[in-house]
C-alpha cells in the first residue's frame, strides 16, 4: 500500500486504518454491536460494511459471544477485529480476555495463538453516568498475555490500529470518545506496520518528567505549555502503548530531570497503572524525592458535569501540581 497523507480527524483515522487492514489482510473480520450497517454508534466504522460484505457484520448484545468467537476465530487463523462499545461493557465478559485470550499462546506452548484486536473507547464525557465513564486499562495491564494501547492523536490512532492488527497477540486498543470528532489533521497512511510498543516525547524540559496516556494527554500538554510560559520547562512523555511499555525511555528521562517524576491518568488513583510507572522508576533507582500522581480520586463518576469535573483533573490543576513538584 502506497504511503500517502490524508487529512482526517481521530475517527476518520481509525476508519482509514480499519479499511487498510480489511483490504491488505484477508484474514481480518470486523464485527460488534451496530458496527456494520449503522457504521457504529460513534460512526467510526461507517462505510466498511458496504465495501467488505460479510466480513463486517452486526452482532447481538452478547459481549461474551463477541469476544469468545473472536478468540475461537483467531485460534483458527483469522484476525478478528471486534468492538466493545464501551470499556465498561468488557466487565460482563472479561473471562474471554483474561481466562481465555490471554492463555491461548502460553498454555499451548505456542501451538495456538489468538491474534485478535478489540477496539473500545472509555472515559468520561459530560453527562455520562458512572457505568459509562470508567477507565479500565489497569485491569488489562495486570493480565499477562494481553497487549494494550491508548492513542490520543489521529496519527497514533491510525498507526496503532495497523500495528495491532499485524500483532500476533491479543491487543486491546482503547480510544476516548471525546477525541473522535476533534480537528482534522494530516495523517500519514500506508507506511509498513510498526511493531507494538514505543513512546512519544511530546515536550522537553529539565524541571521534571511527566508520563501520561490517553485523552488526558491533551490536558497535560496544555499544562506543560502554561508552565513553559512560566519558565518551568517540563518533559512530557506520552505512552500510547502501555503493554509493551517503554520503561527505558521513562527512566532515561527521569534521570535527565533530576529524578522528578509525575504520572497523570484519568483512571482513579488506587492500583491504577500510574503506581506501576512510579514503582518501575523507583526500582530502577531513578526516583528522587516524592513522585507525583495526578489521577481521579477513588470515587465513582457522577453524571452531573460539574460533579464529574470536580473529580477529573483539568489542565489548570495539572499545571498547579506540576509546578509544586518542580519547586519541591
Amino acid at each position: 500500500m502506497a504511503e500517502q497523507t490524508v487529512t482526517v480527524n481521530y475517527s476518520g483515522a481509525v476508519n482509514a486504518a480499519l479499511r487498510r487492514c480489511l483490504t491488505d489482510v484477508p484474514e481480518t473480520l470486523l464485527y460488534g454491536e451496530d458496527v456494520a450497517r449503522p457504521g457504529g454508534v460513534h460512526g467510526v466504522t461507517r462505510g466498511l460494511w458496504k465495501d467488505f460484505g460479510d466480513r463486517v457484520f452486526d452482532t447481538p448484545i452478547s459481549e461474551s459471544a463477541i469476544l469468545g468467537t473472536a478468540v475461537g476465530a483467531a485460534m483458527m487463523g483469522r484476525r478478528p477485529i471486534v468492538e466493545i462499545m464501551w470499556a465498561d461493557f468488557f466487565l460482563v465478559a472479561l473471562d474471554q480476555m483474561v481466562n481465555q485470550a490471554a492463555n491461548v499462546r502460553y498454555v499451548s506452548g505456542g501451538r495456538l495463538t489468538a491474534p485478535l484486536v478489540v477496539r473500545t473507547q472509555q472515559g468520561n464525557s459530560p453527562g455520562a453516568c458512572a457505568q459509562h465513564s470508567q477507565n479500565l486499562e489497569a485491569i488489562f495491564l495486570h493480565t499477562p498475555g494481553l497487549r494494550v494501547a491508548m492513542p490520543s492523536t489521529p496519527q497514533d490512532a491510525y498507526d496503532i490500529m495497523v500495528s495491532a492488527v499485524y500483532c500476533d497477540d491479543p491487543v486491546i486498543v482503547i480510544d476516548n470518545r471525546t477525541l473522535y470528532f476533534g480537528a482534522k489533521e494530516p495523517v500519514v497512511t500506508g507506511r509498513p506496520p510498526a511493531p507494538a510498543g514505543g513512546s512519544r516525547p511530546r515536550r522537553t524540559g529539565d524541571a521534571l518528567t511527566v508520563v501520561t496516556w490517553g485523552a488526558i494527554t491533551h490536558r497535560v500538554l496544555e499544562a506543560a505549555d502554561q508552565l513553559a510560559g512560566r519558565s518551568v520547562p517540563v518533559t512530557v512523555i506520552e505512552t500510547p502503548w502501555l503493554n509493551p511499555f517503554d520503561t527505558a525511555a521513562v527512566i532515561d528521562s527521569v534521570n535527565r530531570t533530576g529524578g522528578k517524576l509525575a504520572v497523570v491518568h484519568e483512571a482513579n488513583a488506587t492500583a491504577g497503572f500510574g503506581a506501576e510507572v512510579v514503582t518501575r522508576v523507583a526500582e530502577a533507582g531513578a526516583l528522587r524525592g516524592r513522585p507525583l500522581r495526578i489521577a481521579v480520586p477513588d470515587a465513582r463518576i457522577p453524571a452531573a458535569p460539574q460533579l464529574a469535573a470536580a473529580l477529573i483533573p483539568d489542565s489548570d490543576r495539572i499545571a498547579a501540581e506540576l509546578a509544586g513538584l518542580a519547586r519541591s
Partner: protein
Amino acid sequence: MRERLLADLRAMWRIRMFEEKTTSLCQSGDIKGSVHLCSGQEAGPVGACGALADGDVVFATYRGHGWAIAKGAPLRAMFAELLGRATGVNGGRGGSAFLSAPEYGFLGENSIVGGGVPHAVGAALAGRHDGSGRLALTVFGDGAMNQGAVHEAMNFAAMADLPVLFVCENNRYSELTPIRDMVRNERLTDRATALGIPAYRIDGNSPAVIRDTVADLAEAAREGGGPAFVELTTQRLVGHYVGDVQQYRGRDELEEDMRAEPVARAVRELTEAGVPDADIAAAEAAVRAEVEEAAAAALADPPADPAGVREHIYG
C-alpha cells in the same frame, strides 16, 4: 371505562410530555450527555405500575424515565436529576440513564444491558425472607434477551420460584439494529417458556391490557407460582438516543408506528367513546402545565454542589 382510559391518557401524557420537554432541554444544552426516551412506550409503565402494590419494586433500564414517573417519582425531581441539580432524585449523580427513586419503589435504571435484571430477582428473594412477600418487576428491551445475565437471572428466578415479573419491551430495535436480524426465532417468549416460566406476548400499546395481564400474573406470583414473563409489542417514536436520526428506519414504518402508538390511540378511543374534544384538550393542557411547571422549578433549583462529590463512597 372512559374515566379509566382518560386517567391512563393523562398518565401517559405526563411521561410523553416529560420526554418532549427533556428533548428541548437537551437541545438547549441544559441537559448534557446521552438521553434515551421512552416516547411511544408509555403504555407499559402506566399499565404495569397500575397493577402493582405499594411495596412492589421496579428495576428498569436507561430508558426508564417513564417507569420512574409511573412509580411516583416527582416530575420536578426527575427533571432536576437530568439537569444535575441538587434536588434531583439522586442529587445529579445518576443522571438520565442511571437514576433511582427508592422512596417510590423505583430501584433504579441501569446502563448495562441486562445489569438490573438479576437485581429484581434478588429483591424478590429478599421479600421471601423479610416477610414482605414483595413482587419485583424488571423491564428490559428485546435486545437484552441476548445478554447472558438475563438468561441466568430468569433461570435463577424459575429455579427458586420467586415472584418476579420479567417485562420485555419489544420496540423492534436494539440501538440501531433490528432484533429480527439478531435472532433466528423472533418469538422471544419461547425463551422464557423453555426455562419453565409462563410467558405472554401482549399488546404493548394498551394500558388496560397490560394492567389486566400484570394484575393476573402478579397475583399468581404472590401465591407462590413463581416468575412470569410478558413481552410488550411496542415502538419507539424517536431515536435510540436524543440525536439519533434513525436512517435505519423507513418512513412507512414510522408512520405505522405513529398510528399504533398509545397516546394517539387513547385519544382516538376516547373520541370514539364520545368524549368531547374539549375535555380531552383540557386534560392535555392541564398535564402540559404541570410538566412545564415542574421543569421551570427544576431549572430554578440549585446545581448539585461539587463540595460533596466525595461523600457516600463508603458507609
